[in-house]
């Protein structure tokens, strides 16, 4: 765990100290020397957009796998209404048709080639969801968000192994509400209307609690930079550590909210990262399941406390030792962040 955190810190600090790494699209023209790139860059009129700070932004082009199904249809409509750049969908055997005004393709590869999509959202039932993730990975999309709940463990272990052998595609989920950059891109089932573009990055295992934190941070005037629902499954594509890494490096994210649950060690891993980074960004956390007795299953399928490890009390202690403000009630998340901002003179 700590090794993973230090690896991330090293890559983080190298990103900060060598801005050249951001000119990645031009580096494929390996015949020219670097200085020529800088003078000739203005000649390329359609330079690809820079990478999003936290996985998605207004330039993200999204396809929906499972678009013609009930959930796919409903949520794609909502996404279009929000202003997400939905560019197409994938339903095998329905390629060539149109749905919700978008072109439907038989495969992710076809969809990507035609629409230049770089992200996908998956609303596909459990028996087929792992294959859908693999397909998106093979097509080398930048981001895959899998909403599906109930994918068999061995399927996800295989997906995880494949994910780890490449670095092009990131998976968020499965069994997650999705990711939203308010005002720019909404991928998933969260209520867009409570979000407001702003200064706080939120990462959470629980969808419903996230919406409370969003509502509160909107209400105190802070707004959100990006909100990531990583989902309730222990075998998932993106964890607290991955999101906190991005938040720490994102200038728009001035404060971070972590919403965790009993079970597993994801929050503890994030703490190691926070400590090593030495960041001054205010961090507020809430851990659900304080009253859950050991051995009982409550809340999410993923949230089981087994003998000592992963109890809410342990997590809260670890977080506080790293300088994180841990609130005891979800009602206090927004106010706590507001207070820390005030104390640090960050309020205008």
């Amino acid at each position, binding site marked *: 765990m700590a090794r993973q955190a230090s690896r991330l810190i090293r890559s983080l600090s190298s990103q900060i100290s060598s801005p050249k790494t951001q000119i990645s699209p031009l580096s494929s023209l390996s015949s020219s020397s670097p200085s020529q790139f800088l003078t000739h860059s203005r000649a390329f009129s359609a330079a690809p957009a820079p990478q999003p700070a936290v996985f998605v932004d207004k330039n993200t082009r999204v396809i929906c796998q499972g678009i013609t199904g009930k959930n796919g249809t409903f949520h794609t409509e909502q996404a279009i209404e929000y202003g997400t750049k939905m560019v197409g969908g994938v339903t095998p055997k329905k390629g060539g048709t149109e749905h919700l005004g978008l072109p439907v393709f038989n495969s992710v590869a076809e969809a990507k080639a035609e629409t230049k999509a770089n992200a996908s959202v998956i609303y596909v039932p459990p028996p087929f969801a792992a294959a859908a993730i693999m397909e998106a990975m093979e097509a080398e999309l930048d981001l895959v968000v899998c909403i599906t709940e109930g994918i068999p463990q061995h399927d996800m272990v295989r997906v*995880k192994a494949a994910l780890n052998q490449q670095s092009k595609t990131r998976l968020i989920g499965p069994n997650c509400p999705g990711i939203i950059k308010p005002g720019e891109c909404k991928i998933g*089932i969260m209520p867009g209307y409570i979000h407001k573009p702003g200064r706080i990055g939120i990462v959470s295992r629980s969808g*419903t609690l996230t919406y409370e934190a969003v509502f509160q941070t909107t209400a105190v005037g802070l707004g959100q930079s990006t909100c990531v629902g990583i989902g309730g499954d222990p075998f998932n594509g993106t964890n607290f550590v991955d999101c906190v890494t991005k938040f720490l490096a994102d200038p728009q994210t001035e404060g971070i909210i972590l919403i965790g649950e009993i079970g597993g060690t994801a929050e503890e891993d994030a703490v190691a990262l926070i400590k090593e980074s030495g960041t001054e960004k205010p961090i507020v956390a809430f851990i659900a399941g304080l009253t859950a007795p050991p051995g009982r*299953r409550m809340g999410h*399928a993923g*949230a089981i406390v087994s003998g000592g490890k992963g109890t809410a009390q342990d997590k809260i202690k670890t977080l506080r030792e790293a300088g994180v403000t841990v609130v*005891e009630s979800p009602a206090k998340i927004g106010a706590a962040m507001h207070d820390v901002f005030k104390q640090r003179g960050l309020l205008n």
Partner: protein
Amino acid sequence: MARKKIREYDSKRLLKEHLKRLVHIDLPICSAQVTESTDFTELLEKESWLSQRRLVVKPDMLFGKRGKSGLVALNLDFAGAVEFIKKRLGQEIEIEGCKGPITTFIIEPFIPHKEEYYLAISSERLGFNISFSECGGIEIEENWDKVNSIFLPTKSPLTDEAIAPLIADLPSEIGKKIGNFMKGVFAVFQDLDFSFIEMNPFTLVDGEAYPLDMRGELDENAAFKNEDKWGNLEFPLPFGRVLSPEESFILDLNDKTSASLKFTLLNPKGRIWNMIAGGGASLIYTDTVGDLGCATELGNYTEYGGPSEEEMLKLARVILDCATANPDGRKRSILIGGNIANLTDVGATFDGIIRALKEKKSELKEANIHIYVRRGGPNYLTGLAKMQAVGEELGIPVEVYGPEAVMTGICNRAIEGM
């Protein structure tokens, strides 16, 4: 979580059947399962080996450390086994603080043996953990340093090379046999979507591996893939959990729908009941009521997500029945709603609850029920207005709050005056 424990009887049944199918290993194990409905004459007819060999009897109730519980009998004949079981079936015992009745036993041939080996396979995030020890059995925990483990990354085959470190200390003939057995068990593990298998111990009979005690966990999410392979399989509740009729009813409903409906009875005499949407939110409400000092007054733990009006009606009826039982004149509260819905039409989902409330008008009044609603989401104002209206119509105190109130504010309101 999808990792669900299964009985030893089923673990062994699956192992035997699929070890044969996948790697042509004939495991000579046999087991018989005994429950309160077992007819011993019929059992003997089906499993004639029961009268031909000496037997071992063990409880098959998903708890371990059975040898230390006084529930295991060795070297009995069939009549002795039947007597042993009849004396104990249905009796309540306590294991690690959990009380419950013994409902299921397993009978197997008594195998005198010398060696006791340990084997465990478990699914991890990036692959599999395989552990082996020559010092298995009841003292395994004391000899944990003698356990060898390997980590096999996903997609890597379990080759002789990979197994070598596990069996390094064994004489080569035995090592080969056990190595082959391990490969076979691993093949079954993967093919049947096990998430955990443990044999403590297995021994050698005529030079071949023979599991004596075995534990297994299957990935319930993989049920759709394995219906035929798993056959008639039961996922028993943890020991000590006996479902009430209401809980069984809702569990049944939940299994038949893609919506989520959960109901656990905590305290039938409790005075704070809830109908909360969302796994995270429902945890929060129970935590908050606990924080306010009223955890013991919680009647139920409930979570729902995406139900139809009919499904909501059924869930609400169960909760209202429980909440209004045995009225004693003191205040009782029902918390409804929860968080800010994303896309659920709040106006529509309340309709199921409202129908249930109307059905129970007199019971609600007699039990002095106060209702507190907090909800946000599409059409929430319509939903809240409907709830307010039904309160007025039925003459029951109903307070409604939208997302401007904190989620758990209604918990304070609910316990006021208790």
